[in-house]
Protein backbone atom coordinates (compact mmCIF):
# COMPACT_ATOMS: atom_id res chain seq x y z
CA UNK A 1 0.00 0.00 0.00
CA UNK A 2 1.14 3.56 -0.64
CA UNK A 3 0.80 6.04 2.18
CA UNK A 4 -2.19 7.57 0.45
CA UNK A 5 -3.95 4.22 0.16
CA UNK A 6 -3.19 3.57 3.82
CA UNK A 7 -4.53 6.90 5.08
CA UNK A 8 -7.48 6.72 2.72
CA UNK A 9 -8.37 3.37 4.26
CA UNK A 10 -8.32 4.93 7.71
CA UNK A 11 -10.46 7.88 6.62
CA UNK A 12 -12.92 5.48 4.99
CA UNK A 13 -13.12 3.28 8.08
CA UNK A 14 -11.26 0.38 6.52
CA UNK A 15 -8.15 -1.40 7.80
CA UNK A 16 -4.74 -0.71 6.23
CA UNK A 17 -1.93 -3.25 6.42
CA UNK A 18 0.04 -0.98 8.78
CA UNK A 19 -0.77 1.89 11.09
CA UNK A 20 -0.15 5.03 9.00
CA UNK A 21 2.72 7.20 10.16
CA UNK A 22 2.03 10.85 9.40
CA UNK A 23 3.57 14.18 10.39
CA UNK A 24 2.74 17.79 9.59
CA UNK A 25 4.89 18.71 6.61
CA UNK A 26 6.11 21.99 8.10
CA UNK A 27 7.68 20.15 11.03
CA UNK A 28 10.05 18.16 8.83
CA UNK A 29 12.03 20.34 6.43
CA UNK A 30 12.80 18.87 3.02
CA UNK A 31 16.08 17.01 3.26
CA UNK A 32 17.54 13.56 3.62
CA UNK A 33 15.83 12.81 6.94
CA UNK A 34 12.39 13.64 5.57
CA UNK A 35 13.11 11.88 2.27
CA UNK A 36 14.38 8.76 4.03
CA UNK A 37 11.31 8.61 6.24
CA UNK A 38 9.00 9.15 3.29
CA UNK A 39 10.73 6.38 1.34
CA UNK A 40 10.01 4.07 4.27
CA UNK A 41 6.31 4.96 4.16
CA UNK A 42 5.83 8.11 6.20
CA UNK A 43 3.15 10.43 4.89
CA UNK A 44 2.81 14.17 5.25
CA UNK A 45 -0.21 16.18 6.25
CA UNK A 46 -0.24 19.52 4.52
CA UNK A 47 -2.62 22.30 5.42
CA UNK A 48 -3.96 24.64 2.80
CA UNK A 49 -6.72 27.26 2.76
CA UNK A 50 -9.87 26.73 0.73
CA UNK A 51 -11.55 30.06 1.45
CA UNK A 52 -10.30 33.61 1.57
CA UNK A 53 -11.64 36.47 3.58
CA UNK A 54 -12.51 39.87 2.20
CA UNK A 55 -13.02 43.03 4.28
CA UNK A 56 -14.76 45.63 2.14
CA UNK A 57 -14.69 48.37 4.73
CA UNK A 58 -11.37 47.77 6.45
CA UNK A 59 -8.09 49.23 5.21
CA UNK A 60 -4.71 47.98 6.29
CA UNK A 61 -1.43 49.90 6.86
CA UNK A 62 1.84 48.11 7.45
CA UNK A 63 4.82 49.89 8.97
CA UNK A 64 8.22 48.40 9.72
CA UNK A 65 10.75 49.80 12.17
CA UNK A 66 13.78 47.73 13.02
CA UNK A 67 12.62 44.17 13.63
CA UNK A 68 9.07 45.20 14.54
CA UNK A 69 6.25 45.28 12.01
CA UNK A 70 3.11 47.16 13.04
CA UNK A 71 -0.12 46.41 11.20
CA UNK A 72 -2.99 48.86 11.59
CA UNK A 73 -6.52 47.94 10.57
CA UNK A 74 -8.69 51.00 9.94
CA UNK A 75 -12.27 49.87 10.59
CA UNK A 76 -15.43 52.01 10.40
CA UNK A 77 -15.50 51.94 14.22
CA UNK A 78 -11.85 52.80 14.90
CA UNK A 79 -8.33 51.44 14.46
CA UNK A 80 -6.84 48.17 15.67
CA UNK A 81 -3.10 47.50 15.72
CA UNK A 82 -0.95 44.45 16.09
CA UNK A 83 2.85 44.28 16.46
CA UNK A 84 5.01 41.44 15.20
CA UNK A 85 8.68 40.85 15.91
CA UNK A 86 10.65 39.39 13.02
CA UNK A 87 14.01 37.65 12.80
CA UNK A 88 13.62 35.53 15.91
CA UNK A 89 16.12 32.88 14.87
CA UNK A 90 15.33 29.18 14.78
CA UNK A 91 11.97 29.29 16.49
CA UNK A 92 8.53 28.04 15.44
CA UNK A 93 6.04 30.24 13.64
CA UNK A 94 8.37 31.18 10.82
CA UNK A 95 10.85 32.86 13.13
CA UNK A 96 8.56 35.71 14.06
CA UNK A 97 6.03 36.26 16.77
CA UNK A 98 3.08 38.45 17.58
CA UNK A 99 3.85 40.77 20.46
CA UNK A 100 0.24 41.63 21.18
CA UNK A 101 -3.28 41.19 19.90
CA UNK A 102 -5.65 43.47 18.04
CA UNK A 103 -7.86 43.90 21.11
CA UNK A 104 -5.79 45.30 23.96
CA UNK A 105 -8.41 47.16 25.98
CA UNK A 106 -12.22 47.20 26.16
CA UNK A 107 -12.08 50.32 23.98
CA UNK A 108 -10.94 48.11 21.08
CA UNK A 109 -13.96 45.80 21.20
CA UNK A 110 -16.19 48.06 19.11
CA UNK A 111 -13.69 48.17 16.23
CA UNK A 112 -13.16 44.40 16.50
CA UNK A 113 -16.91 43.82 16.16
CA UNK A 114 -16.98 46.08 13.11
CA UNK A 115 -14.10 44.20 11.49
CA UNK A 116 -15.54 40.76 12.22
CA UNK A 117 -18.94 41.84 10.91
CA UNK A 118 -17.32 43.03 7.69
CA UNK A 119 -15.71 39.67 6.88
CA UNK A 120 -17.02 37.94 3.77
CA UNK A 121 -15.72 34.51 2.70
CA UNK A 122 -15.12 33.31 -0.83
CA UNK A 123 -14.19 29.82 -1.97
CA UNK A 124 -10.79 29.56 -3.62
CA UNK A 125 -9.48 26.02 -3.40
CA UNK A 126 -6.73 26.35 -6.00
CA UNK A 127 -3.92 26.08 -3.41
CA UNK A 128 -5.65 23.03 -1.98
CA UNK A 129 -6.23 21.24 -5.28
CA UNK A 130 -2.71 22.06 -6.51
CA UNK A 131 -1.24 20.59 -3.34
CA UNK A 132 -3.41 17.47 -3.54
CA UNK A 133 -2.01 16.95 -7.03
CA UNK A 134 1.59 17.71 -6.06
CA UNK A 135 1.78 15.53 -2.95
CA UNK A 136 0.19 12.60 -4.76
CA UNK A 137 0.57 9.32 -2.86
CA UNK A 138 2.88 10.83 -0.25
CA UNK A 139 0.37 12.70 1.85
CA UNK A 140 -3.00 14.23 2.46
CA UNK A 141 -4.19 17.81 2.55
CA UNK A 142 -6.35 19.23 5.29
CA UNK A 143 -7.73 22.71 5.75
CA UNK A 144 -9.12 25.00 8.34
CA UNK A 145 -12.84 25.12 8.88
CA UNK A 146 -14.80 27.52 11.03
CA UNK A 147 -13.27 28.17 14.44
CA UNK A 148 -14.94 28.35 17.85
CA UNK A 149 -15.85 32.02 18.45
CA UNK A 150 -14.62 31.94 22.04
CA UNK A 151 -11.17 30.73 20.92
CA UNK A 152 -11.07 33.51 18.36
CA UNK A 153 -11.71 36.13 21.04
CA UNK A 154 -8.53 34.83 22.68
CA UNK A 155 -6.62 35.22 19.45
CA UNK A 156 -7.96 38.74 18.99
CA UNK A 157 -6.66 39.50 22.48
CA UNK A 158 -3.28 38.15 21.37
CA UNK A 159 -3.42 34.72 22.99
CA UNK A 160 -2.43 31.69 21.00
CA UNK A 161 -1.14 28.42 22.45
CA UNK A 162 2.60 28.23 22.42
CA UNK A 163 3.10 31.88 21.64
CA UNK A 164 5.99 33.61 23.28
CA UNK A 165 4.28 36.13 25.54
CA UNK A 166 1.28 33.95 26.34
CA UNK A 167 1.14 35.02 29.97
CA UNK A 168 0.52 38.66 29.17
CA UNK A 169 -1.99 37.97 26.42
CA UNK A 170 -4.05 35.36 28.25
CA UNK A 171 -4.24 37.76 31.19
CA UNK A 172 -5.38 40.51 28.86
CA UNK A 173 -8.03 38.21 27.41
CA UNK A 174 -9.41 37.36 30.85
CA UNK A 175 -9.56 41.00 31.92
CA UNK A 176 -11.42 41.94 28.73
CA UNK A 177 -14.14 39.44 29.57
CA UNK A 178 -14.41 40.72 33.09
CA UNK A 179 -14.17 44.43 32.32
CA UNK A 180 -16.65 44.60 29.48
CA UNK A 181 -19.02 41.61 29.53
CA UNK A 182 -21.72 43.17 27.34
CA UNK A 183 -19.35 44.22 24.55
CA UNK A 184 -17.50 40.91 24.86
CA UNK A 185 -20.79 39.04 24.37
CA UNK A 186 -21.48 41.21 21.34
CA UNK A 187 -18.08 40.24 19.92
CA UNK A 188 -18.90 36.55 20.47
CA UNK A 189 -22.17 37.03 18.65
CA UNK A 190 -20.46 38.74 15.71
CA UNK A 191 -17.88 35.96 15.58
CA UNK A 192 -20.58 33.28 15.59
CA UNK A 193 -22.16 34.95 12.56
CA UNK A 194 -18.75 35.25 10.88
CA UNK A 195 -17.99 31.56 11.44
CA UNK A 196 -21.40 30.62 10.06
CA UNK A 197 -20.45 32.46 6.85
CA UNK A 198 -17.11 30.68 6.79
CA UNK A 199 -18.87 27.34 7.36
CA UNK A 200 -21.02 27.78 4.27
CA UNK A 201 -17.95 28.54 2.16
CA UNK A 202 -16.08 25.50 3.52
CA UNK A 203 -19.10 23.29 2.81
CA UNK A 204 -19.09 24.54 -0.77
CA UNK A 205 -15.37 23.79 -1.17
CA UNK A 206 -13.76 20.44 -2.14
CA UNK A 207 -12.00 20.17 1.26
CA UNK A 208 -12.62 16.79 2.89
CA UNK A 209 -10.58 16.80 6.12
CA UNK A 210 -11.66 19.87 8.06
CA UNK A 211 -9.74 21.10 11.08
CA UNK A 212 -12.02 22.60 13.72
CA UNK A 213 -10.26 24.37 16.55
CA UNK A 214 -8.09 23.03 19.31
CA UNK A 215 -7.85 22.18 22.97
CA UNK A 216 -4.73 23.49 24.64
CA UNK A 217 -5.91 22.79 28.16
CA UNK A 218 -5.51 26.28 29.57
CA UNK A 219 -9.09 27.46 30.07
CA UNK A 220 -10.44 24.41 31.87
CA UNK A 221 -13.23 22.00 30.93
CA UNK A 222 -16.10 23.88 32.55
CA UNK A 223 -15.41 27.08 30.64
CA UNK A 224 -14.81 24.96 27.51
CA UNK A 225 -18.16 23.19 28.01
CA UNK A 226 -20.00 26.48 28.33
CA UNK A 227 -18.19 28.52 25.72
CA UNK A 228 -16.82 26.13 23.10
CA UNK A 229 -18.72 22.82 23.03
CA UNK A 230 -21.92 24.36 21.57
CA UNK A 231 -19.91 25.44 18.53
CA UNK A 232 -18.98 21.82 17.78
CA UNK A 233 -22.48 20.55 18.39
CA UNK A 234 -23.80 23.14 15.93
CA UNK A 235 -21.08 22.84 13.29
CA UNK A 236 -19.99 19.21 13.10
CA UNK A 237 -23.35 17.77 11.95
CA UNK A 238 -23.54 20.32 9.12
CA UNK A 239 -20.07 19.46 7.88
CA UNK A 240 -20.67 15.71 8.18
CA UNK A 241 -23.92 16.05 6.25
CA UNK A 242 -21.85 17.61 3.46
CA UNK A 243 -19.46 14.62 3.47
CA UNK A 244 -16.64 16.27 5.39
CA UNK A 245 -14.45 14.64 8.03
CA UNK A 246 -14.17 16.78 11.14
CA UNK A 247 -10.95 16.87 13.15
CA UNK A 248 -10.22 18.45 16.51
CA UNK A 249 -6.61 19.26 17.41
CA UNK A 250 -6.27 18.25 21.05
CA UNK A 251 -2.67 18.56 22.15
CA UNK A 252 -3.39 19.47 25.80
CA UNK A 253 -1.26 17.58 28.27
CA UNK A 254 -4.23 17.59 30.68
CA UNK A 255 -6.68 16.14 28.16
CA UNK A 256 -8.23 13.64 30.57
CA UNK A 257 -10.31 16.42 32.11
CA UNK A 258 -11.81 17.16 28.67
CA UNK A 259 -12.27 13.57 27.53
CA UNK A 260 -16.01 13.31 28.11
CA UNK A 261 -16.59 16.70 26.48
CA UNK A 262 -14.64 15.66 23.39
CA UNK A 263 -16.95 12.67 23.14
CA UNK A 264 -19.86 15.09 22.94
CA UNK A 265 -18.41 17.10 20.02
CA UNK A 266 -19.19 14.38 17.47
CA UNK A 267 -15.86 14.91 15.66
CA UNK A 268 -14.53 12.09 13.48
CA UNK A 269 -10.87 12.53 14.38
CA UNK A 270 -8.99 13.65 17.45
CA UNK A 271 -5.64 14.90 16.29
CA UNK A 272 -2.40 15.43 18.23
CA UNK A 273 -3.57 13.41 21.22
CA UNK A 274 -0.45 13.05 23.34
CA UNK A 275 -0.52 10.04 25.69
CA UNK A 276 1.48 9.63 28.91
CA UNK A 277 4.16 10.36 29.95
CA UNK A 278 3.74 13.76 28.29
CA UNK A 279 -0.05 13.84 28.46
CA UNK A 280 -2.46 12.39 30.99
CA UNK A 281 -4.93 10.53 28.78
CA UNK A 282 -3.95 7.03 27.68
CA UNK A 283 -5.06 5.69 24.33
CA UNK A 284 -6.96 2.89 26.05
CA UNK A 285 -8.90 5.43 28.07
CA UNK A 286 -9.48 7.59 24.99
CA UNK A 287 -10.93 4.56 23.17
CA UNK A 288 -13.10 3.73 26.15
CA UNK A 289 -14.50 7.28 26.31
CA UNK A 290 -14.92 7.95 22.58
CA UNK A 291 -15.56 4.51 21.12
CA UNK A 292 -13.95 2.65 18.24
CA UNK A 293 -15.26 4.88 15.47
CA UNK A 294 -13.27 8.00 16.31
CA UNK A 295 -9.93 8.21 14.49
CA UNK A 296 -7.00 8.92 16.78
CA UNK A 297 -3.97 10.69 15.38
CA UNK A 298 -1.41 10.16 18.09
CA UNK A 299 1.46 12.54 18.74
CA UNK A 300 4.73 11.04 19.88
CA UNK A 301 6.39 13.92 21.64
CA UNK A 302 9.93 14.61 20.44
CA UNK A 303 10.97 15.01 24.07
CA UNK A 304 10.77 11.22 24.28
CA UNK A 305 13.64 10.94 21.82
CA UNK A 306 15.95 11.81 24.69
CA UNK A 307 15.25 8.36 26.10
CA UNK A 308 16.88 6.70 23.08
CA UNK A 309 15.64 4.75 20.03
CA UNK A 310 15.05 1.42 21.79
CA UNK A 311 12.81 3.10 24.34
CA UNK A 312 10.96 4.97 21.57
CA UNK A 313 10.42 1.74 19.61
CA UNK A 314 8.91 -0.05 22.60
CA UNK A 315 6.80 2.98 23.42
CA UNK A 316 5.34 3.23 19.90
CA UNK A 317 4.66 -0.52 19.78
CA UNK A 318 2.71 -0.18 23.00
CA UNK A 319 0.80 2.78 21.56
CA UNK A 320 -0.14 0.85 18.43
CA UNK A 321 -1.46 -1.94 20.63
CA UNK A 322 -3.33 0.36 23.01
CA UNK A 323 -4.82 2.42 20.18
CA UNK A 324 -7.20 -0.37 19.38
CA UNK A 325 -8.54 -0.95 15.88
CA UNK A 326 -5.77 -0.47 13.35
CA UNK A 327 -8.28 1.11 10.98
CA UNK A 328 -8.83 4.06 13.30
CA UNK A 329 -5.31 4.89 14.33
CA UNK A 330 -2.60 7.18 12.94
CA UNK A 331 0.75 7.72 14.65
CA UNK A 332 3.16 10.57 14.04
CA UNK A 333 4.64 13.78 15.33
CA UNK A 334 2.40 16.85 15.50
CA UNK A 335 4.32 19.02 17.90
CA UNK A 336 7.61 20.61 16.94
CA UNK A 337 9.29 18.22 14.55
CA UNK A 338 12.88 19.18 13.97
CA UNK A 339 12.27 22.85 14.80
CA UNK A 340 15.13 24.12 16.92
CA UNK A 341 17.50 21.23 16.20
CA UNK A 342 20.84 22.94 15.59
CA UNK A 343 23.53 20.54 16.78
CA UNK A 344 24.75 17.17 15.52
CA UNK A 345 24.06 15.27 18.74
CA UNK A 346 20.39 16.32 18.85
CA UNK A 347 20.04 15.80 15.10
CA UNK A 348 21.33 12.24 15.46
CA UNK A 349 18.96 11.59 18.36
CA UNK A 350 15.98 12.86 16.37
CA UNK A 351 16.98 10.84 13.31
CA UNK A 352 17.15 7.66 15.39
CA UNK A 353 13.88 8.52 17.13
CA UNK A 354 11.94 8.99 13.91
CA UNK A 355 13.27 5.79 12.38
CA UNK A 356 12.57 3.89 15.61
CA UNK A 357 8.91 4.86 15.30
CA UNK A 358 8.72 3.43 11.77
CA UNK A 359 10.56 0.30 12.97
CA UNK A 360 7.94 -0.09 15.69
CA UNK A 361 5.13 0.01 13.16
CA UNK A 362 6.75 -2.61 10.92
CA UNK A 363 7.89 -0.40 8.06
CA UNK A 364 10.84 -2.03 6.29
CA UNK A 365 14.22 -0.31 6.42
Amino acid sequence: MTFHERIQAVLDGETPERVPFMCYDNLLPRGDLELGLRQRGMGLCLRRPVVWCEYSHVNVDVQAAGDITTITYHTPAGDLTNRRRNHMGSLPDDASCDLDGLVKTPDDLKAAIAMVSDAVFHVDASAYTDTVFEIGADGIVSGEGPQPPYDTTGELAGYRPGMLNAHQTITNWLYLQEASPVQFAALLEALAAQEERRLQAVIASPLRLVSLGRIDGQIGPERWRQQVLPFYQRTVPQLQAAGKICSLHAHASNLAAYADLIGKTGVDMVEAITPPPRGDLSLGEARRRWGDKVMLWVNVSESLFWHGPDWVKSYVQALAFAGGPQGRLIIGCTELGTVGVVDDETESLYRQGYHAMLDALGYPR
Partner: protein
Amino acid sequence: MSFNETIYEGILEGNMKVVATATTDALAAGVAAGSILNEAMIPAMAEVGRLFEINEYYVPELLIAARAMKAGLEILKPQLVATGIEPKGKVVVGTVKGDLHDIGKNLVAIMVEGAGYEVIDLGVDVAPEAYVNTAIAQGAQVIGLSALLTTTMPSMKATVEALQESGMAGKIKVMIGGAPVTQKYADEIGADGYARDAAGAARLVEQLINS
Protein backbone atom coordinates in the same frame (compact mmCIF):
# COMPACT_ATOMS: atom_id res chain seq x y z
CA MET B 1 -16.63 36.71 58.76
CA SER B 2 -13.22 37.93 60.01
CA PHE B 3 -10.95 40.13 57.89
CA ASN B 4 -8.62 37.21 57.24
CA GLU B 5 -11.51 34.99 56.20
CA THR B 6 -12.74 37.69 53.83
CA ILE B 7 -9.28 38.03 52.31
CA TYR B 8 -8.94 34.24 52.01
CA GLU B 9 -12.29 33.90 50.27
CA GLY B 10 -11.62 36.98 48.12
CA ILE B 11 -8.41 35.45 46.78
CA LEU B 12 -10.12 32.13 46.03
CA GLU B 13 -12.82 33.99 44.14
CA GLY B 14 -10.30 36.26 42.43
CA ASN B 15 -12.07 39.32 43.76
CA MET B 16 -9.42 42.02 43.70
CA LYS B 17 -11.62 44.75 45.16
CA VAL B 18 -12.73 42.65 48.12
CA VAL B 19 -9.16 41.65 48.92
CA ALA B 20 -7.83 45.22 48.67
CA THR B 21 -10.63 46.65 50.81
CA ALA B 22 -10.44 43.92 53.44
CA THR B 23 -6.64 44.28 53.66
CA THR B 24 -6.92 48.03 54.17
CA ASP B 25 -9.68 47.59 56.75
CA ALA B 26 -7.77 44.83 58.56
CA LEU B 27 -4.66 46.97 58.92
CA ALA B 28 -6.77 49.91 60.10
CA ALA B 29 -8.39 47.65 62.68
CA GLY B 30 -4.98 46.62 63.99
CA VAL B 31 -4.63 43.17 62.50
CA ALA B 32 -0.90 42.40 62.18
CA ALA B 33 0.49 42.37 58.65
CA GLY B 34 2.16 39.02 59.37
CA SER B 35 -1.17 37.54 60.35
CA ILE B 36 -2.82 38.69 57.14
CA LEU B 37 0.04 37.28 55.08
CA ASN B 38 0.51 33.97 56.90
CA GLU B 39 -3.05 33.21 57.93
CA ALA B 40 -4.99 34.50 54.93
CA MET B 41 -2.96 35.17 51.79
CA ILE B 42 -0.47 32.30 51.78
CA PRO B 43 -3.09 29.67 52.78
CA ALA B 44 -5.43 31.05 50.12
CA MET B 45 -2.80 30.68 47.40
CA ALA B 46 -1.96 27.21 48.71
CA GLU B 47 -5.63 26.31 48.32
CA VAL B 48 -5.62 27.80 44.80
CA GLY B 49 -2.63 25.57 44.07
CA ARG B 50 -4.42 22.54 45.44
CA LEU B 51 -7.47 23.25 43.32
CA PHE B 52 -5.20 23.74 40.30
CA GLU B 53 -3.54 20.38 40.89
CA ILE B 54 -6.82 18.50 41.14
CA ASN B 55 -8.12 20.18 37.95
CA GLU B 56 -10.77 22.31 39.60
CA TYR B 57 -8.94 25.54 38.89
CA TYR B 58 -7.22 26.27 35.59
CA VAL B 59 -4.99 29.03 34.32
CA PRO B 60 -7.73 31.71 34.29
CA GLU B 61 -8.74 31.07 37.90
CA LEU B 62 -5.10 30.96 38.98
CA LEU B 63 -4.25 34.24 37.27
CA ILE B 64 -7.28 36.01 38.67
CA ALA B 65 -6.58 34.72 42.19
CA ALA B 66 -2.97 35.87 41.90
CA ARG B 67 -4.09 39.31 40.79
CA ALA B 68 -6.37 39.53 43.84
CA MET B 69 -3.54 38.51 46.17
CA LYS B 70 -1.19 41.04 44.58
CA ALA B 71 -3.73 43.79 45.15
CA GLY B 72 -3.73 42.97 48.86
CA LEU B 73 0.02 42.41 49.02
CA GLU B 74 0.76 45.86 47.61
CA ILE B 75 -1.16 47.36 50.53
CA LEU B 76 0.52 45.01 52.97
CA LYS B 77 4.12 45.42 51.80
CA PRO B 78 5.03 48.65 53.66
CA GLN B 79 3.79 47.10 56.90
CA LEU B 80 5.68 43.86 56.25
CA VAL B 81 8.89 45.81 55.70
CA ALA B 82 8.29 48.00 58.75
CA THR B 83 7.76 44.99 61.00
CA GLY B 84 10.77 43.12 59.63
CA ILE B 85 8.83 40.18 58.18
CA GLU B 86 10.99 38.55 55.55
CA PRO B 87 10.26 36.05 52.78
CA LYS B 88 10.70 32.34 53.58
CA GLY B 89 13.50 32.08 51.04
CA LYS B 90 14.71 33.14 47.61
CA VAL B 91 14.08 31.38 44.32
CA VAL B 92 15.57 32.25 40.94
CA VAL B 93 13.33 31.34 38.00
CA GLY B 94 13.64 31.65 34.25
CA THR B 95 12.99 30.01 30.90
CA VAL B 96 16.13 28.31 29.63
CA LYS B 97 18.50 29.48 26.92
CA GLY B 98 17.02 29.34 23.44
CA ASP B 99 13.42 29.30 24.66
CA LEU B 100 11.29 32.43 24.76
CA HIS B 101 8.05 30.97 26.14
CA ASP B 102 6.94 32.55 29.37
CA ILE B 103 3.59 31.27 30.60
CA GLY B 104 4.76 28.23 32.56
CA LYS B 105 7.60 30.13 34.19
CA ASN B 106 5.26 32.98 35.16
CA LEU B 107 2.74 30.59 36.70
CA VAL B 108 5.53 29.04 38.76
CA ALA B 109 6.67 32.51 39.87
CA ILE B 110 3.10 33.34 40.93
CA MET B 111 2.67 30.18 42.97
CA VAL B 112 6.11 30.32 44.59
CA GLU B 113 5.61 33.96 45.50
CA GLY B 114 2.17 33.09 46.78
CA ALA B 115 3.76 30.53 49.06
CA GLY B 116 5.78 33.28 50.74
CA TYR B 117 9.09 33.21 48.86
CA GLU B 118 10.91 36.00 47.10
CA VAL B 119 11.13 35.26 43.40
CA ILE B 120 13.90 36.64 41.20
CA ASP B 121 12.55 36.30 37.70
CA LEU B 122 15.30 36.33 35.06
CA GLY B 123 12.79 36.22 32.21
CA VAL B 124 13.27 34.07 29.13
CA ASP B 125 16.28 32.85 27.11
CA VAL B 126 18.41 32.62 30.26
CA ALA B 127 21.95 31.25 29.98
CA PRO B 128 23.14 28.63 32.52
CA GLU B 129 25.73 31.01 33.97
CA ALA B 130 23.10 33.70 34.52
CA TYR B 131 21.02 31.38 36.72
CA VAL B 132 24.03 30.29 38.72
CA ASN B 133 25.63 33.72 39.11
CA THR B 134 22.34 35.32 40.13
CA ALA B 135 21.52 32.59 42.62
CA ILE B 136 24.94 32.91 44.25
CA ALA B 137 24.89 36.73 44.26
CA GLN B 138 21.36 36.90 45.66
CA GLY B 139 21.73 34.09 48.15
CA ALA B 140 18.94 32.06 46.58
CA GLN B 141 18.30 28.52 47.76
CA VAL B 142 16.57 27.22 44.63
CA ILE B 143 16.87 27.69 40.87
CA GLY B 144 13.78 26.89 38.82
CA LEU B 145 14.23 26.08 35.11
CA SER B 146 11.38 26.09 32.62
CA ALA B 147 11.32 24.90 28.99
CA LEU B 148 8.65 24.45 26.36
CA LEU B 149 10.81 23.49 23.41
CA THR B 150 12.21 19.97 23.43
CA THR B 151 15.41 21.17 21.83
CA THR B 152 16.16 23.55 24.69
CA MET B 153 16.06 20.81 27.33
CA PRO B 154 19.86 20.27 27.13
CA SER B 155 20.23 23.77 28.56
CA MET B 156 18.76 22.36 31.77
CA LYS B 157 21.56 19.84 31.90
CA ALA B 158 24.08 22.60 31.17
CA THR B 159 22.71 24.61 34.09
CA VAL B 160 23.00 21.67 36.45
CA GLU B 161 26.61 21.24 35.28
CA ALA B 162 27.33 24.96 35.67
CA LEU B 163 26.09 24.79 39.24
CA GLN B 164 28.29 21.77 39.92
CA GLU B 165 31.29 23.63 38.51
CA SER B 166 30.55 26.59 40.78
CA GLY B 167 30.85 24.32 43.80
CA MET B 168 27.37 25.32 44.99
CA ALA B 169 25.53 22.13 43.97
CA GLY B 170 23.69 20.78 46.98
CA LYS B 171 23.63 24.18 48.64
CA ILE B 172 21.55 25.60 45.81
CA LYS B 173 18.94 23.16 44.52
CA VAL B 174 17.75 22.91 40.91
CA MET B 175 14.18 22.11 39.99
CA ILE B 176 12.96 21.71 36.43
CA GLY B 177 9.61 21.68 34.68
CA GLY B 178 7.78 22.45 31.45
CA ALA B 179 5.66 20.58 28.96
CA PRO B 180 8.35 18.31 27.47
CA VAL B 181 10.10 17.61 30.77
CA THR B 182 9.61 14.44 32.82
CA GLN B 183 10.81 13.08 36.16
CA LYS B 184 12.89 10.60 34.18
CA TYR B 185 14.70 13.46 32.46
CA ALA B 186 15.23 15.24 35.76
CA ASP B 187 16.82 12.09 37.17
CA GLU B 188 19.00 11.66 34.09
CA ILE B 189 20.49 15.16 34.27
CA GLY B 190 20.89 15.21 38.05
CA ALA B 191 18.31 17.89 38.85
CA ASP B 192 17.17 17.96 42.47
CA GLY B 193 13.50 17.94 41.60
CA TYR B 194 10.82 17.97 38.92
CA ALA B 195 7.39 19.53 39.13
CA ARG B 196 4.56 18.75 36.74
CA ASP B 197 2.81 22.08 37.26
CA ALA B 198 3.06 25.44 39.03
CA ALA B 199 1.39 24.29 42.20
CA GLY B 200 3.71 21.32 42.38
CA ALA B 201 6.65 23.67 41.91
CA ALA B 202 5.63 25.71 44.95
CA ARG B 203 5.45 22.56 47.07
CA LEU B 204 8.75 21.35 45.66
CA VAL B 205 10.47 24.59 46.67
CA GLU B 206 9.29 24.00 50.24
CA GLN B 207 10.61 20.43 50.16
CA LEU B 208 13.96 21.36 48.62
CA ILE B 209 14.60 24.15 51.09
CA ASN B 210 13.63 22.03 54.07
CA SER B 211 15.44 18.89 52.95
